[in-house]
């Protein structure tokens, strides 16, 4: 989250970035304003020794285990309105997934309003989500600060979102998530998925692409601070 936030800061200076990464160890992330302290069983999370972080973006909890995580940070002017940005990024991911043989589609915006109570981020597809047969394959969230945005999200290689429901206090909706392994009937690697996304991104977003190291990450200890993680 520190690095994604650093990309957002660099985007405010005019840079545009696509970052593809994974988590080691696996981690539970909360949405920026999610009432995690009452929604999830903190004692159990700590007893299980799970890593926990609160994202700078909104939405609900995600268990980051076997997935490709993407982050796009860029000046707002490069992409446009919130909806246009969402659509452009998700359409690029759909194009990448189709290269892998996944019949992914963008859910249209006419679906019912997603419920915003307890449960995993993947429990309910909103309009513009990447789905297969109505089940959510990619969970994304966006934040806008000044003249730049950060959108990041998880592309499930294998599904373990049931853990979020297990850690939820009271009843939680069973996730309607689907993973690439389930769709393709085989194990899908981080390398092949991230390569497909990078190829699709180069095709969608024309310009001079440079592969490289992350920009210098400014010290932002917020994401390692339990007071921030469990602030509500």
């Amino acid at each position, binding site marked *: 989250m520190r690095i994604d936030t650093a990309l957002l800061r660099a985007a405010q200076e005019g840079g545009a970035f696509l970052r593809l990464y994974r988590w080691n160890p696996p981690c539970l992330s909360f949405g920026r304003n999610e009432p995690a302290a009452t929604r999830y069983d903190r004692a159990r999370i700590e007893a299980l020794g799970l890593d926990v972080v609160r994202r700078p973006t909104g939405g609900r909890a995600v268990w980051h285990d076997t997935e490709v995580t993407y982050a796009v940070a860029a000046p707002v002017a490069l992409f446009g309105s919130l909806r246009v940005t969402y659509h452009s990024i998700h359409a690029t991911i759909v194009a990448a997934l189709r290269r892998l043989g996944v019949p992914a589609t963008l859910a249209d915006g006419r679906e019912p*309003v997603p419920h915003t109570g307890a449960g995993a981020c993947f429990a309910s597809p909103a309009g*513009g989500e990447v789905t297969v047969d109505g089940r959510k394959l990619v969970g994304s969230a966006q*934040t806008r600060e000044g003249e730049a945005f950060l959108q990041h999200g998880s592309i499930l290689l294998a599904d373990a979102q049931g853990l979020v429901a297990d850690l939820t206090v009271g009843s939680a909706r069973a996730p309607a998530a689907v993973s690439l392994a389930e769709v393709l009937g085989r194990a899908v690697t981080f390398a092949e998925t991230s390569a497909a996304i990078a190829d699709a991104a180069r095709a969608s977003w024309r310009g001079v692409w440079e592969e490289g190291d992350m920009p210098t990450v400014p010290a932002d200890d917020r994401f390692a601070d339990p007071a921030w993680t469990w602030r509500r």
Partner: protein
Amino acid sequence: MSNIPADLRYTEEHEYIRSEAGGVVIIGITDYAQGELGDIVYVDLPDVGTSLARMDVFGTIEAVKAVSELFSPLAGEVIEINDALDKDPSLVNKDPYDDGWMIKMQIRSEGELNELLPASDYAQHIGE
């Protein structure tokens, strides 16, 4: 078409400013903005007494799929916040110009009001 009341002032960041007597203004986000954001699930507002410079971030607003910053269109002091949004942030969607207001400010210079967009300019800004 969005609702853009003629008696309010606006910013390019999609806030509206309603002037009351004695240099007091009420600030919220426009009907267009709430429509773009979609279902609003949380509004984070400053404490009463907070002093704001023009274009300071005074809070954040979270919709189902995005968190956005809220910018103070004027310099002044926050004298009241809309506590009702804590329990029901969807008021911003349902009634952005009345029940969905966000903060009330005592502004430092009423002259700054003239630098804000009138309704016709804001309509042009959002392409309506």
